[in-house]
């Protein structure tokens, strides 16, 4: 047993360090070599995550002190059920999007090249032809004098930034202490800002706004962490949780600092998750990012903040009665987010902003469980002999549901954003009206959009359905019927806005009086990058959204590993 164990521990360190190393090395490489390296790294990380997931599923929490230094000054990596699930989702989405970006370098952004170079390479050999027409048109609107630089599709800076971001994400997921969580969050935030900025001139203001928000959120988190340390004397997540629980048990202890810390941390992380009313930055950032970047931002980057939020609320703070007001405020903001995000999504006429607003709406679901955690009646119910509830069943159900919703959202939204970005690159627009009937020309893209819509609405079989089901049952068990109302309303709303997005693409000219006028596809007919295998990427993710719905029971089982109850 020792050999596979040490191997898994090696994997635990490698999922953080390998992408970081690859990120640093890829800076030295040329464009084509970076693509190869990116794909190899992503497949390797997928391979490294598998033993971690298997080991954790078998019921073991993995723990590794890097370099043999113990806390407080050493770095402890720890993987429990929650970590393993988020690691796995990140690895799957990351690997698929990496393959997509390698197959379609034009999707990785836009860069300015000197006009002389542009003339010399008037017949570019690489696959960046797809969005070149778009780039040309925009280039004309920026600079039209010939010697000025021009915009061309494709930005090789994508690879070091994305691999660095992946390293940060994995660091957040396996971090055993709050300080490394902070460093990981910062790495994710800064690389994500730079990834948005790859979108060219239009994306720069959005990237800057995102930078302000991300840094502000991190600062609030940092102050909160320092407060927790000053109370508990440790940064370790589990140890600080124990100290706080002890303090809570002794009645005369003053927990004001912990409550203040939780307020600051929650506010900072809510900024990063884009919880209504702190969501304004997300729309321009996610919709103006390049096609290969928006799925990463929406599926993975905001999940890092969500993960930390769950960690702090469940592992560090525990059920402190002083936090009830804060939990209700956050849950209320979540309910409002579902409403506001959905209504705003319905009002969009363009595909990518609509999907971005749908992210805002879906983020609301992840905050609904907080009042359940703190309800003293929940634990009282469990204690009674008449009920069939096991110890911690309500909490397990609520957490399982929320995690299932978050993971399902990650897969579905990555697929949806990939497909939408692909259509935008094909036709040079993402106006839904102009894309009417695109389903006939690109059945696979629109099919994957449909599959991910199934996941986002939460129709049966999908992971979204499993999540809503688990959350709803535990809400009923705890007597919180308002969650049911919110879930039903959210489901109806998401069906409405996703139909609005997908239905026009499915229109066939036979059953519609108006003639279909798709914009001239801005691509060479022989451009394999836009019509070929790259379309498989959103399809694979869409398929996974639906297939993973079978994993509901397994998922709650994995979450039990290292659970705080």
């Amino acid at each position: 047993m020792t050999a596979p164990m040490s191997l898994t521990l090696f994997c635990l360190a490698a999922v953080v360090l390998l992408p970081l190393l690859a990120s640093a090395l890829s800076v030295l490489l040329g464009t084509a070599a970076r693509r190869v390296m990116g794909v190899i790294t992503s497949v390797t990380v997928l391979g490294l995550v598998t033993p971690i997931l298997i080991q954790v599923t078998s019921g073991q929490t993995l723990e590794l002190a890097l370099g043999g230094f113990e806390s407080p000054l050493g770095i402890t990596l720890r993987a429990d059920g929650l970590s393993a699930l988020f690691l796995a989702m990140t690895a799957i989405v990351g690997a698929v999007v990496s393959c997509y970006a390698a197959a379609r370098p034009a999707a990785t952004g836009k860069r300015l090249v000197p006009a002389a170079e542009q003339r010399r390479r008037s017949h570019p050999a690489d696959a960046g032809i797809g969005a070149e027409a778009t780039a040309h048109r925009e280039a004309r609107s920026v600079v039209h004098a010939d010697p000025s630089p021009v915009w061309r599709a494709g930005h090789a800076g994508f690879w070091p930034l994305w691999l660095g971001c992946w390293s940060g994400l994995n660091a957040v997921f396996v971090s055993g202490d709050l300080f490394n969580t902070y460093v990981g969050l910062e790495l994710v935030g800064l690389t994500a800002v730079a990834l948005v900025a790859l979108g060219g001139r239009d994306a720069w203001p959005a990237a800057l706004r995102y930078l302000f928000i991300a840094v502000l959120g991190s600062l609030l988190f940092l102050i909160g962490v320092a407060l927790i340390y000053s109370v508990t004397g440790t940064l370790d997540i589990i140890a600080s949780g124990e100290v706080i629980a002890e303090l809570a048990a002794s009645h005369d202890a003053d927990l004001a600092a912990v409550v203040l810390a939780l307020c600051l941390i929650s506010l900072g992380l809510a900024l990063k998750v884009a919880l209504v009313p702190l969501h304004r930055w997300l729309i321009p950032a996610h919709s103006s990012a390049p096609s290969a970047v928006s799925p990463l931002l929406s599926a993975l980057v905001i999940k890092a903040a969500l993960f930390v939020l769950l960690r702090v609320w469940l592992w560090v703070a525990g059920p402190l009665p002083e936090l009830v007001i804060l939990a209700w405020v956050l849950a209320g903001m979540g309910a409002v987010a579902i409403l506001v995000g959905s209504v705003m999504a319905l009002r969009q006429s363009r595909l990518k902003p609509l999907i971005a607003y749908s992210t805002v709406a879906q983020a609301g679901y992840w905050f609904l469980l907080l009042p359940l955690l703190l309800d003293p009646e929940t634990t009282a119910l469990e204690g009674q002999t008449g009920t069939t509830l096991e110890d911690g069943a309500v909490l397990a159900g609520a957490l399982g549901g929320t995690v299932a919703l978050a993971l399902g959202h990650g897969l579905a939204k990555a697929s949806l954003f990939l497909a939408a970005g692909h259509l935008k690159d094909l036709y040079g627009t993402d106006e839904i009206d102009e894309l009417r009937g695109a389903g006939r020309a690109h059945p696979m893209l629109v099919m994957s959009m449909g599959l991910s819509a199934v996941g986002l609405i939460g129709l049966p079989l999908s992971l979204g359905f499993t999540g809503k089901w688990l959350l709803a049952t535990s809400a009923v068990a705890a007597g919180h019927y308002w969650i049911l109302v919110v879930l039903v309303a959210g489901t109806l709303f998401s069906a409405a806005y996703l139909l609005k997005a997908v239905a026009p693409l499915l229109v066939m000219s036979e059953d519609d009086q108006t003639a279909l006028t798709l914009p001239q596809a801005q691509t060479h007919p022989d451009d394999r990058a836009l019509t070929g295998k790259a379309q498989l990427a959103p399809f694979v993710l869409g398929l996974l959204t639906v297939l993973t719905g079978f994993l509901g029971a397994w998922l709650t089982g994995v979450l039990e590993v290292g659970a705080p109850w």
Partner: protein
Amino acid sequence: MMLAQWALSMGAVELTQMQWYLLVGTAIAVIGLVRMLLTRDLLARLIALNVTGIGSLMIILALAARTAESGDATGGTEAAGSGIDPVLSALVITGLVITVAFTGLGAVLIRRIEGAQDAERAHTLDDVHDPERSGDAGDRE
């Protein structure tokens, strides 16, 4: 300076040194935050964010001194004599490094945004009757 004088006049309420620093740090952070949210000038916003960052790091330093003084921190016992907690100092140093990183990134972005705007404005002055550009020339300000 006004703030310092006001805080000194409040000194009648018997603030310890750490509490004083905590207050000043909070005040700096809040002032930076308010300025960041109210101004539209990009460079001013970046600097305001820096001020917020410094304020929050000051809060953490004050906490570090307090933790070391009370001496109940596991890491702070040896350093109790020097009066500062090593773990929280490490937090502050990392915070400083990250401040440098985000300021650099922000400065590059601001330079690019304003450079693009300047180029655009120069072009609109060049030929006023270019229909493609007249729309988005004045999207800011």
